[in-house]
């Protein structure tokens, strides 16, 4: 049995962890927590951290003792510098909370890249954890909608840089912009995206700790995440009808299955594919064919198979990326954004000069 730590920072991280806790109850309604038990195979500890108390209050499926409030107004207002100093002031409190929960084999930290709290807490938290413990730590990072504004874009760019410097063992990307097609108002789009991420993470946790597995385990996951440029994403497909396993694998690797826009055949560097379902779907020939197709374009591909009687095929793919053209695009927009912010600030500064000019008149009256 594995010991798994899951931390969610900031509003986005909090809500995704709450979605994971909710799905773990299995029930579709918010009352599931009253009548069912979470079905984690491993010992999973979930912790959510936020500066804004209202964000923490909104959660429904995370225990009170797992919600950590770091008091600072109502959030840090997307200012990463304030976020960093608030973390430093409260570091001991946060680290004690984690320490109290025993030893872990692996940790996942979830955050948005573009807010204030999560995006500044997460890299610092990972750095602290890395100094104290030697289990692998993976960040799950949500990128903003591109139209959310220049501030968010520049936060995302700097957050990702800090994240790579933090010593994290891998960064799994999910992109709000790319997942936007889920549609609806912003609230239901968020919920939809969070549920997608939660479903994949639960499948992954289940696979890492499954005794019925052939071939993959936490060690393989580490090897996959070591590949590429430290960036990864996850693809997933769950059939709701009789679908050949070949199609299921292809769908998991196609845009509709991925959390981040990439052409896996061009950009991926290592992969792990886990296939779950009834024995009748698990044609070794078909699976090998598809996996080989990917392997010939990518590199090493680990495959795992879980037999589940009577279930339609489900496929999860973890892919590390050698190159992420979508991220390059985001960075070039972010650089423009930073430039733009700087110019705006200079303009404001020069306005201050004008104020100074006016202030020379303070206390004087016109004389005629």
């Amino acid at each position, binding site marked *: 049995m594995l010991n798994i730590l899951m931390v969610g920072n900031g509003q986005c991280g909090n809500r995704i962890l709450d979605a994971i806790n909710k799905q773990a109850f299995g029930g579709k309604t918010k009352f599931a927590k009253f009548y069912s038990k979470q079905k984690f195979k491993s010992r999973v500890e979930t912790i959510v951290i936020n500066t804004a108390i209202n964000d923490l*209050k909104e959660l429904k499926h*995370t*225990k*009170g003792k797992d919600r950590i409030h770091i008091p600072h107004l109502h959030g840090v207002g997307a200012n990463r510098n304030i976020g960093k100093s608030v973390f430093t002031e409260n570091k001991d409190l946060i680290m004690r909370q984690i320490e109290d929960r025993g030893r872990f084999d692996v940790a996942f930290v979830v955050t948005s890249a573009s807010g204030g709290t999560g995006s500044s807490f997460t890299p610092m938290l990972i750095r602290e954890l890395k100094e104290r413990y030697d289990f692998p730590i993976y960040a799950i990072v949500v990128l903003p909608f591109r139209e959310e504004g220049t501030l968010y874009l520049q936060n995302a760019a700097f957050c990702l840089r800090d994240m790579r410097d933090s010593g994290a063992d891998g960064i799994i990307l999910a992109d709000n912009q790319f997942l936007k097609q889920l549609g609806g108002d912003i609230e239901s789009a968020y919920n939809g995206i969070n549920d997608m991420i939660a479903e994949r993470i639960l499948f992954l946790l289940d696979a890492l700790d499954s005794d*019925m597995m052939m071939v993959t385990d936490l060690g393989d996951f580490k090897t996959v995440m070591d590949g590429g440029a430290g960036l990864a994403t996850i693809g997933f497909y769950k059939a709701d009808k009789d679908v050949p396993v070949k199609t299921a694998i292809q769908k998991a690797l196609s845009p509709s299955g991925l959390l981040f826009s990439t052409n896996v055949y061009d950009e991926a560097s290592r992969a792990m594919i886990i296939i779950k379902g009834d024995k009748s779907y698990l044609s070794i020939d078909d699976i090998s064919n598809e996996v080989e197709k990917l392997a010939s374009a990518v590199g090493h591909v680990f495959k795992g198979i879980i037999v589940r*009687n009577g279930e339609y095929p489900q496929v999860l793919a973890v892919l590390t990326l050698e190159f992420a053209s979508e991220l390059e695009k985001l960075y070039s927009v972010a650089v423009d954004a930073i430039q733009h912010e700087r110019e705006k600030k200079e303009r404001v500064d020069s306005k201050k000069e004008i104020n100074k000019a006016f202030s020379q008149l303070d206390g004087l009256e016109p004389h005629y």
Partner: protein
Amino acid sequence: MVKLSRTFLLVLCSIVLLTMLSGSASASVEYFEEEIKIGDGYQINNYVIDVTDVFITDKLAIFKVYENGDNEPIHDEMIGINESFNFDLENGEIELKLLSVGSGVLDRASVLITVRNVDTYLTGIVNGGHEYATYSGTPVIELTKTVDEDNIMVDDIITVTVTAKNTGDDKATNVIFSDPKQEHFILDKSILEQTGPMSMDVGASQTVFVYMLKATEAGSFILKSSTATFSNSANQAFPQASSNTPTITVTAPESLEVQKYAVLELSTDVDSMIVARNDKITATINIKNTGDAPASAVWINIIIPQGLEYVDGDSAIEIIGGVPKIYMESFGVQGEKEYPYTVKASELGTYTLTTKLAYEYDDGVNAEAQKDSTESVTENIYVQKGKYDELLEQPIYVYALPIIAIIAIGAWIFHRHKQYKF
């Protein structure tokens, strides 16, 4: 009598004529209006109409028709303006009409050529006339498939060679070879594979495929034929050519291996045969492989009758679709395992617990996995009245029980609510 036979002949003729007309249902007409210089010709398929002389003042021209580039013309006609002459070509007919004549460095004739019911694949002016035209013929591709050995053992390797030769009278163009995948054999190595497209001159030969096949099973097998598609120099496509199909006899090796079996023995024991209602019973499944081959894909289903309830059991037991099951990828020779589980007796009665086992194994002789299954049934389990059953039969508990249940549920919801409150 004479009159009669004449009428008869007339009727016969009209019938023949009618059938001819309806036969050419696909009647087609093409027109070509051309200006041809003296010495040049006009080609239709393998025929060329040369303009050999033009007389400007007399308004006459001389045409000669050649077939297949022969030296002797098959027609030699002199016609005036607005005159025409006809001749048969293949299954159709050509009408050539002189429209006008003109003078120049070389005198010329303008003609209207009407082509009826000819499948034209090649038309146009030929500079220099019939001697300079290209004629098409019939390429014939002969494909030969040979094997170095046709009487082999399983696992032996044969070399298959496919050669092609053009034995026709025209160049073969656009030749594409293909060779189907061979059942009962696996491709061991491909040494040469020239699928084209290529062209083959008259008389040319060519080795197209050389590959090695490994026999995977015993039997007498016919190798599939290789095929070629091709066209002639005029780009007319011809029916696909096929090779011969050698027969290979594959003998099974003297089987040295003895057939092996996986024999899984199954038994289920319970810790007590007489229990009170609401008591628990522990059953233990014992499984042992007493055969000489390992078993694979082992499924165990535990069938619990109504009146008994599955409580929990060994961590290998999973509940799938409400049925407790165990799956093992493999189970070695002489292996033995025990899986305990507990059931609760929820209703009075007599019960048995059934365990069903299915597995596969490789018997070392047959290619496909062998399947086997077995089941075991416990002795009777008697569930009798429990200690409190007597009390429960009192009507007051009929009311008390739901109340206790409601209180318990309320307390649980309150507890959970507090746990998740923030």
